[in-house]
């Protein structure tokens, strides 16, 4: 019985098993079909898509930033160069927790709280795989401190980069400007392709104005990278072309002499070659350290510079506007000669003050006892104010103003760095627009009188004053001031020179009239009563000059001026203009010392030092 049961079961089991095997085979074939279908879908249907993904995975285009061009002076001395430094860079997409990372960088002293908003803005404005510079020019201590904690900062890396350095430091700071990290604002005006690998851009002055030459042409490298981003193979490489070296018209001897003489003072000195407009010295003090700024200042240090009462970030030579004081007198004299208001021989009696007809108001001369009878020569030599009050009244403000404008005053000179101020040559029309109260709008005759000695509304920049002085030296020939002498291809060494740009000359061709004012300026330096004869002593060459002292605020009638009583910052500005050699001028200088009190004492020696330094080795 058990036997039959087993046999019957055996047959049934066999049948059952065969049925289940059929189902199993169907299952196997069905699942295999699914796998094959998926393979076909991926490898045939979406082949293009995944091919592109695969290429994107492995091929990266890495920009090769160009090396920034050098900046040289006219004699080939290096004013700005590139030196290796270490900086901390971040690749945002590799940073797992950005807020936490930034917080820890602040705690570690590598960043300051105040730096964060700008950094965040840069991070969001860039593509996530672009590197962002977090901190520049790390000190050895910072390097070591970060190296120890590196594993805790994924996405951050120390990189060696070429940093900008300025061997002459503060002495050429306002001349050269500086470079800085590319800000969100800079990005708007820069070609993103050319600046893909570049971290720094010229911010101001020469570095900014000649950015296009200095930057060079970016290259790129198509590389195969592995999953860690390590370069495995270079597919293609377009080398970057270094930027051109910029050669300036500056003579570093003159520049250093001016900077040295201006140490400890607030002021500016600009020297120009009258023959072509080349700027030989361009100094503004006090100055910042361009090396520190290019390395990246902390927010606090930057604010300290900005808020310094002496304004070290302010380029006085380019943007400072001062009343010219008596330095305007040679030009006013020429205007009077031009319009026949006076002659070289005409004499004016000076009793120490001048009054307009029908007025009791006394316009005082700087010399209370007066200069006696003065002609044009002695009026310039001794800087007689009464003489110039007199001819200014006769000239009138319109004629005087329009003639001064032919020297380039009241308008930008067009120098090849940006940011110039215009200064001001006043006129009745100007006054009408500039003042709101009706009582202040009319032009008063007294304002013409004081304009004759460079006071009142008249304002000049040191650059304009130097340009005007060069124009006197060149007897009316004018050239646009220029800082760029040429640029050099750093690979081939070939130099392309810039041509001087002539400007419309001063409309005065009578030689004797030019002779008259230049003789007066010569007398200032070498005449027996010249205001700056002390400075002209023992010079190996003859020079012409004019001192100026500009009131910072008005002194009331009959008040005695006492320098000691006036706060240091309310003292007069000291000015001086000069050119040399007298017979064939090669250099014209303008110097302004804020609150320097006396043009002939404070400013003239500086002009002399600059001319000495330049003429010593120039032809």
């Amino acid at each position, binding site marked *: 019985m058990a036997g039959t049961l087993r046999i019957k079961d055996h047959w049934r089991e066999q049948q059952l098993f065969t*049925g289940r095997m059929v189902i199993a085979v169907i299952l*196997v074939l069905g699942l295999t079909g699914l*796998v094959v279908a998926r393979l*076909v879908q991926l490898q045939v249907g979406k082949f293009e898509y995944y091919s592109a993904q*695969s290429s994107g*995975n*492995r091929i990266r285009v890495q920009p090769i930033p160009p090396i920034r061009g050098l900046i040289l002076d006219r004699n080939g001395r290096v004013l700005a160069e590139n030196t290796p430094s270490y900086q901390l860079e971040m690749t945002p997409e590799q940073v797992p927790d950005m807020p936490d990372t930034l917080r820890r960088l602040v705690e570690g002293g590598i960043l300051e709280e105040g730096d964060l908003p700008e950094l965040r803005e840069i991070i969001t404005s860039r593509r996530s795989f672009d590197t962002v510079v977090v901190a520049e020019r790390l000190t050895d201590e910072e390097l070591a401190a970060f190296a120890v904690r590196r594993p805790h900062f994924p996405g951050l890396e120390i990189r060696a980069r070429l940093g900008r350095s300025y061997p002459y430091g503060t002495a050429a700071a306002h001349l050269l400007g500086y470079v800085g990290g590319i800000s969100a604002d800079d990005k708007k005006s820069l070609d993103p392709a050319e600046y893909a690998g570049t971290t720094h851009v010229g911010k101001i002055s020469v570095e900014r104005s000649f950015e296009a030459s200095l930057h060079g042409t970016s290259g790129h490298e198509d590389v195969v990278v592995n999953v860690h981003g390590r370069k495995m193979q270079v597919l293609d490489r377009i080398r970057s072309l270094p930027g051109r070296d910029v050669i300036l018209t500056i003579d570093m001897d003159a520049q250093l002499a001016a900077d040295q003489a201006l140490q400890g003072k607030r002021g500016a000195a600009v020297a120009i070659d009258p023959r072509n407009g080349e700027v030989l010295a361009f100094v503004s003090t006090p100055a910042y350290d361009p090396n520190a700024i290019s390395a990246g200042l902390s927010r606090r240090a930057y604010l300290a510079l900005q808020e310094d009462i002496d304004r070290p970030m302010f380029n006085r030579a380019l943007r400072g506007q001062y009343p010219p004081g008596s330095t305007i007198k040679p030009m006013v004299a020429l205007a009077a000669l031009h319009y026949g208001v006076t002659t070289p021989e005409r004499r004016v009696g000076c009793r120490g003050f001048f009054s307009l007809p029908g007025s009791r108001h006394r316009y005082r001369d700087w010399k209370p006892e007066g200069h006696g009878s003065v002609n044009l020569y002695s009026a310039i030599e001794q800087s007689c104010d009464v003489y110039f009050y007199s001819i200014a009244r006769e000239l009138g403000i319109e004629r005087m103003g329009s003639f001064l404008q032919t020297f380039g005053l009241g308008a930008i000179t067009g120098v090849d760095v940006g940011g110039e101020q215009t200064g001001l040559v006043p006129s009745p029309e100007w006054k009408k627009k500039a003042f709101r109260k009706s009582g202040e709008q009319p032009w008063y005759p007294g304002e013409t009188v004081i304009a004759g000695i460079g006071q009142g509304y008249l304002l000049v920049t040191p650059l304009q004053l130097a340009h005007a002085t060069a124009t006197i030296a060149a007897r009316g020939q004018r050239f646009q001031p220029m800082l760029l002498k040429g640029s050099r291809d750093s690979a081939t060494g070939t130099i392309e020179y810039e041509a001087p740009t002539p400007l419309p000359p001063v409309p005065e061709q009578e030689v004797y009239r030019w002779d008259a004012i230049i003789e007066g300026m010569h007398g200032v330096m070498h005449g027996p009563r010249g205001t700056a004869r002390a400075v002209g002593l023992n010079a190996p060459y003859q020079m012409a000059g004019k001192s100026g002292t500009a009131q910072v605020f008005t002194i009331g009638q009959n008040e005695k001026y006492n320098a000691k009583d006036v706060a240091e910052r309310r003292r007069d500005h000291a000015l001086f203009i000069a050119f040399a050699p007298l017979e064939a001028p090669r250099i014209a200088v303008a110097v302004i010392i804020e609150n320097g009190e006396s043009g002939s004492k404070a400013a003239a020696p500086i002009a002399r030092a600059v001319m000495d330094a330049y003429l010593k080795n120039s032809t």
Partner: protein
Amino acid sequence: MNTPQLGISLEPRSRVEQGLLARVLRFMHLDGWLLAGIGGVLVFSLLTLYSAEGQKLPELLDQVVRMLIAFGALLFMAQISPSWLRRGSPLVYGLGLVLLILVLVTGDIGKGAQRWLDLGVRFQPSEIMKLGVPLTLCWLLHERPLPPSFGLLLLVVLIVVLPTGMIAVQPDLGTAILIVLSGAVVVFLAGLGWRYILAIAALAGAAMPALWLVMHEYQRKRVLTLLDPESDPLGAGYHIIQSKIAIGSGGVFGKGWLNGTQGQLEFLPERHTDFIFAVIGEEFGLLGGLALLLLYLLIVGRGLYIAASAPDTFSRLLAGSLSITFFFYVFVNTAMVMGMIPVVGVPLPLVSAGGTSMVTLMAGFGILMSIQTHRKLVAR
């Protein structure tokens, strides 16, 4: 009365026609078709591993040694006749159980999970259970009338749950599932009633939420990642995205041996172990992938044929279970690499680098060969 006919009709050749090779194979109790399929897959394995491991010969030689050891296991198992094997089955199961308990108590930590046992050689006792569970179930069902009764099924469940429970807590969910599957295949082939199958399916469906609760965090993440790999492209979804890129960019003809950028540039993780199928897809293309699948089908098909022509319940169930389970390994791995199912740690059988799983698989093939080559002695 059908039995003799069945036996004759499934016989491939008559004895007279057999050549020298066939006689050697028969003497060593080996099966030519299976050997051909396995050999083909191993060649694939060596070529791909050489490429995926950065073209280092020492690593490749290691794998060759593992293959030889595994082949030794195959040879050994092929010599044991099915009747002896049947009698030894409970012993294998018992040994496996003891070792699993040992792992729970003392096991090494490998990759964050407690799976390894160091007994001179390090190995995973769960591998033993891949054979131990189906062997024991076949042994159990061999004597019993089929389809199995309810009481018998309870015993089956106990036999399966005991080891898989221990494996699942190691945690090695992938292996546990595959062992449950091999057990399920045995009872399915044994003729488990459809109402049971439906009941189990319903139960499994109901158990899904519960399973979700007991899953480890990383296991849940794997499931979620399958649904939307782009949600975490650099984290959990990275494996799947990169392996799909590798396979898809291979196209029909592949990028060529040693030229797969995804693999060579290390974008593809686990490229010599669980994700080796992506390297094959990238370097050998659709044609290479299909060739490998064909070799697998040859092995599975031959295994099923052996099962169909096996003389007794034990051999039949065992051969069927081993073949279908092997196919599941292939399916789970390839489907996982192509993003069709969640990532479970199942290597591509015979191709992925690593020794233990290959030894188990080859031992299984040894059993298949034994069933095939001892058949006549038993039958007559």
